Each structure stands twice: as C-alpha cells, then as structure tokens.
C-alpha cells in the first residue's frame, strides 16, 4: 500500500482517519499535531521574549513517550530564544530497568545539547522502589507509592529549576484511559482537577499559583504512532517494561479501549473531545466551591491539601522507615 501523500511505501494505516502514511509523512503529521497542541493550549505566553525566556522542564524517563516529546520540542524550539528546555530524569531505584533508561536520557540530551538533571528516590528520600515493593507497609500496588514520590520530585525540581511549565509525555491512549477511569469512577471533582492541572488552555485554568503549570503536548497522538515515531527516527528510547508495573484497573480499561477502537475507529479521539468539554464545564462549576485550602506540610514544607497533617509522601516515608 502506498502513502496517500507521496506514493512511497506506507508504514501505517490510521483507521480513525482512513490515512495510509509513509514514515516521513507520519513523522510530519505527528510533529504538526504536537505543534498545534502547543498553540491551542497557549503554552508560549505573550510575555515570552529573548530577554524573558521561558524554562520548560520535561519529565524525561527515557521511555518512548518522553523521548519523542523531547525530540519534537527540541526541533520546534531549538532556534527560538524564548524557550529553554531542561530534561528532568528521576531514578526510582529499580535495578536494571531505570539504569538503562537513564542512559537513553543522557544520550538524547547530549545529542540535542539540552540541560539534563538526574535525581533519585535514594538521594532524596533514602528509599529504593525495589525495597519499597518488598516492604509494602500500606499493602498497595508499587505504582501507588511510586506515583506519590515521582509527583513530589517532579514538582519540587521543576520549581528549583525555575520552570514556567512542566511537560510530560502522556499520549492519547494514556489520556483516554484516565478520562474513562475518572468517568467510570463517577469522580467529577477529579475531572475538574484534570482540566485545571493539564488539559485546559493555560489562560483558562483556575489559579495554579502554588504549582508549576503542566502540559501534555503529545496527548493528541495515539501511543502506537509515538512508538513508530521513535522507531522510524531511530531515537534512543528505552523499551523494557517496569518490573513492578501493576495498574490492574488501568490495564482493564486499556483492553476495553483497544476493543472499542478496533470496532469503532476514532473512539479515543471522541472520548477526549467530549471529556475536555465536560472537564471545562466541571472546572467552572467546581472552580469556586471546589477550591481546597492549601497548606505547607509541617514535615517537609511542600504544598499539600491535608490541613494540620503531613503530606502523603511524608506519611508513606514514615511507614517505610
């Protein structure tokens, strides 16, 4: 089968649009979608200038998603003096797995001449995920601990690095799964938070002064296309599954979405189109009443919504001590 645009051999069929694309036109189409998302979410503010450059910190794990995001943002902004990119990598203490993906991050940022910061749970918290899963004092999935620690470090270091924006490599599949999970859990408050945390255009979000704003410029691109982009462009993405990965409910939703997408191409896109609109309405509705009083954790000083008590990270660390 030939590419619809140039007649070269197609590398994929996007059933949701009917397009057959060759490697070059698939890559160009992905880059176009990422740039359009950057524009639509108004990520480059008017006040950005060569004299007042914006620092964008990218959560760079070394997996395909964050590597592709870093490459495309670099290609887009390398010549733009208004935007400075920094790669932030977190080592969770997972033997064999994270060591290799850190190598991918070092290689990529060296190739692109991007500042790279590496922090670890061990240095920051004195714990390693390999030990946490053995200890497991709260009887939780590994991802439940890891997510709390990762969010804490991403926020803290984004702030320390003077970030104006914290970007992550969530793709269309990730976001459609989260949307469906929030919907099926009936959690409208969480849907509203999702809009203010990362989905809405920056100027439309509720006041987020306490946190560095987040963005997900890959969220219009299906996961498979992200993987093909990394493969076709020979990017140094690390391709091993985390040995502790255990998000059972998300896995169930993922399987459901694969089936739906196969029978009804475009399902992921339509879920997100409707969900974004719904999240906007929910954020407006919850905006004033839903605001949670924020305070500083008495133990570590990080911003938390739990009044008078320690933040979740400190609670978990105490349980692990």
């Amino acid at each position: 089968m030939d590419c619809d645009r140039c007649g070269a051999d197609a590398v994929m069929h996007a059933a949701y649009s009917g397009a057959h694309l060759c490697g070059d036109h698939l890559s160009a189409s992905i880059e176009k979608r990422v740039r359009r998302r950057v524009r639509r979410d108004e990520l480059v503010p008017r006040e950005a200038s060569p004299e007042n450059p914006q620092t964008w910190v990218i959560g760079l794990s070394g997996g395909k998603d964050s590597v592709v995001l870093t490459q495309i943002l670099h290609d887009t902004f390398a010549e733009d003096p208004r935007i400075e990119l920094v790669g932030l990598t977190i080592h969770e203490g997972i033997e064999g797995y994270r060591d290799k993906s850190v190598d991918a991050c070092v290689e990529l940022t060296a190739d692109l001449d991007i500042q790279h910061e590496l922090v670890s749970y061990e240095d920051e918290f004195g714990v390693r995920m390999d030990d946490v899963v053995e200890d497991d004092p709260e009887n939780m999935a590994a991802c439940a601990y890891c997510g709390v620690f990762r969010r804490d470090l991403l926020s803290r270091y984004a702030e320390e690095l003077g970030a104006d924006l914290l970007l992550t490599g969530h793709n269309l599949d990730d976001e459609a799964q989260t949307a469906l999970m929030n919907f099926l859990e009936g959690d409208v408050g969480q849907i509203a938070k999702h809009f203010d945390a990362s989905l809405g255009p920056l100027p439309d979000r509720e006041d987020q002064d306490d946190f560095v704003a987040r963005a997900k410029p890959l969220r219009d691109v299906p996961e498979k296309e992200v993987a093909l982009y990394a493969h076709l462009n020979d990017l140094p993405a690390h391709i091993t599954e985390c040995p502790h990965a255990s998000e059972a409910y998300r896995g169930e939703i993922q399987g459901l979405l694969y089936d739906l997408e196969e029978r009804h191409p475009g399902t992921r896109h339509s879920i997100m189109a409707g969900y974004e609109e719904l999240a906007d309405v929910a954020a407006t509705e919850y905006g004033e009443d839903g605001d949670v009083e924020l305070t500083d954790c008495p133990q570590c000083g990080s911003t938390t919504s739990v009044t008078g008590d320690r933040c979740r990270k400190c609670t978990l660390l105490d349980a692990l001590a």
Partner: protein
Amino acid sequence: MRVTVDVKGEETHEVDLETAEGTPAARSSPPTYAELLAAIDYSPHEVSVLVDGHPVPEDQPVETDEVTVLRLIKGG
C-alpha cells in the same frame, strides 16, 4: 499459509492463517496483518508489525512468511 510471528521479548508463534481463529477459510480477500495479530490475541493498537525490519500497515494482506511484532511499552 503458515507465518512465523516473532513477538520480541516473548514467544514465537507459528500461525496457520487458513485455520486461525477469526479467519474464515472461504474468503474473497487474502488475510491481513490485523487478522494475523488477532490470531495471537494482539490488537493493532498495542503493537507494531515489522516485515524485514520495516513497519507495515495492519490492514494490508500478509505477503510474507515471517514477521516481527514489537509490543508497545507503557510509560518507562
């Protein structure tokens, strides 16, 4: 038609496309890569199919007796 499907990092399957589940024996069009994937319980949205190292569209007819399947790795 027998096809060897090497799922990277996992097992290798020998699939007989004439008898594979979900593949009608009597048919007017040749079996596609998507049907080959269905025979080993993968969705085209969770893998890439490579023939001689090059990705191929899954809606295309299988024209080889050896393919490699790359699973997508979450997060990382």
